[in-house]
């Protein structure tokens, strides 16, 4: 078994403008996903908008600088994640395909075990 972090990316402005019915449909999608794969899910959360993010970068001389905003400014921002367990990438991809990501998509990253 291996663990995968599934990062959910989407266009935040499209999300802001989404009709209540669309939002409800997406939330229902997540609820169903959580229920169907309860046994494989190791965690997951939705994130607040990237406008609330704070980035801390090492300045290379022992200190750090703090700035407003996400680490990388992109049109499609990280909006949530799931941590899931799967025997292989095909199974992880099959699960990830069912995650609602109407204005973007998801990225599947294997967790690197540290021993």
């Amino acid at each position, binding site marked *: 078994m291996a663990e995968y972090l599934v990062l959910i990316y989407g266009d935040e402005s499209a999300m802001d403008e989404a009709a209540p019915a669309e939002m409800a449909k997406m939330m229902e999608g997540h609820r169903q996903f959580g229920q169907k794969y309860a046994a494989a899910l190791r965690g997951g959360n939705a994130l607040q908008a990237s406008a609330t993010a704070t980035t801390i970068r090492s300045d290379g001389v022992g200190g750090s600088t703090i700035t407003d905003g996400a680490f990388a400014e992109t049109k499609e921002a990280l909006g949530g994640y799931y941590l899931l367990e*799967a025997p*292989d990438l*095909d199974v992880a991809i099959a699960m990830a395909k069912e995650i609602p990501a109407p204005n973007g998509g998801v990225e599947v990253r*294997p967790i*690197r075990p540290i021993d």
Partner: protein
Amino acid sequence: MDASVEAAVADAHRREWAYVLAATVRVTGDIDLAEECVQDAYARALTTWPVQGVPSRPGAWLTTVARRRAIDMLRRRTTHDRVVPALAGFDDADHEPADHGGVIADDRLRLIFTCCHPALAPESQVALTLRLICGLTTSEVARMFLVPEATMAARITRAKKKIATARIPYRVPGPDELPDRIDAVLTVVHLVFTTGHTAPQGAELVRTDLVERALHLARMLRSLLPDEPDVAGLLALILLTDARLPARTAEDGTLALLADQDRSRWDADKIAEGLRLVREALERRPPGRFALMAAIAAVHAEAPTWSATDWAELVGLYDLLVTIWPSPVVSLNRAVAIGLAEGPEAGLAALDALAGEPQLAAYGYLASARADFLRRLGRVDEAADAYRQALAVTENAVEAGFLSARLAEADHDLRSAP
């Protein structure tokens, strides 16, 4: 060394590499280790076969030797050595790959589906397929794609690392995924073929090394997936297209277009085999992408001359193809067929509808097709311009030579015009 033994080893390398490697991966659960053991087995064959004679089943002999070596090396390995995780998809208990039901799983198929997994970049899929399925060395693959060996080595290493760490499984996909995954495999083989058939760069029009590898891969797939119409379609497409090879270049090395080819020089055996396969591929409704492309090649193969080609049939086939495989290049070929079925005016109109396609901007065929229709309409001035545009984007020396000759004709017509 006895030349016949050397030839037998080379032949076993070409025919059996995938079989031996795939069977060995089953023992090691690790592609790198399996490759090393298989290379050892071929080296052993070179020293053993001259003494003991060539075995009646070379593939079985090589597999036994490679597997024995693998078991030996695995025993000597401590758990500490195992930095790379084992390939995913094995049942841990006995290293028996766990496939979904319903598909006959040859080990070679598992290896092919792993190499052509959509989670790998297309260029990595091609590189892995040539290296692991065809048994080419990294430097041979690098030469085929005209990239430095170090670049190709890094590409292959990165892809293998992803297979292991992201756990891309060593498995034949289940029935739900199978059609898409077969299409991915066929796409890789088709890419190897097209890269060889019209070499994108360089002095020669055709790279026979790549064409032969593509044909070998398509035949292997055909034997492993005999009931898949699109596999039959791809093999037919390769055979029917490659059958024209002897007529594609004139003796002085210049390009002969389909229109001007001496059809008696086409390979009749390849055409006969291709036509049989096309009929089989078209039995599935609706026909798939490769079946349709093969049917298009079949229309040309069956036409006794260029002027006797059934252009209306071709337009119909392109219409079907463009609905299942919408691509600017397919639309371009469709436009050319329309021009030949209904006249240069109609063809030019269909071509001009594609003028804004960004994908065609760097593609010389749009400009050269326009040039050809313009020339037929007597618009020599515009034809010359279009030939110049086509010349500006082609990187193949033989194609460039052809276009220059046409441009010279157009310029000559222009000067001699009243």
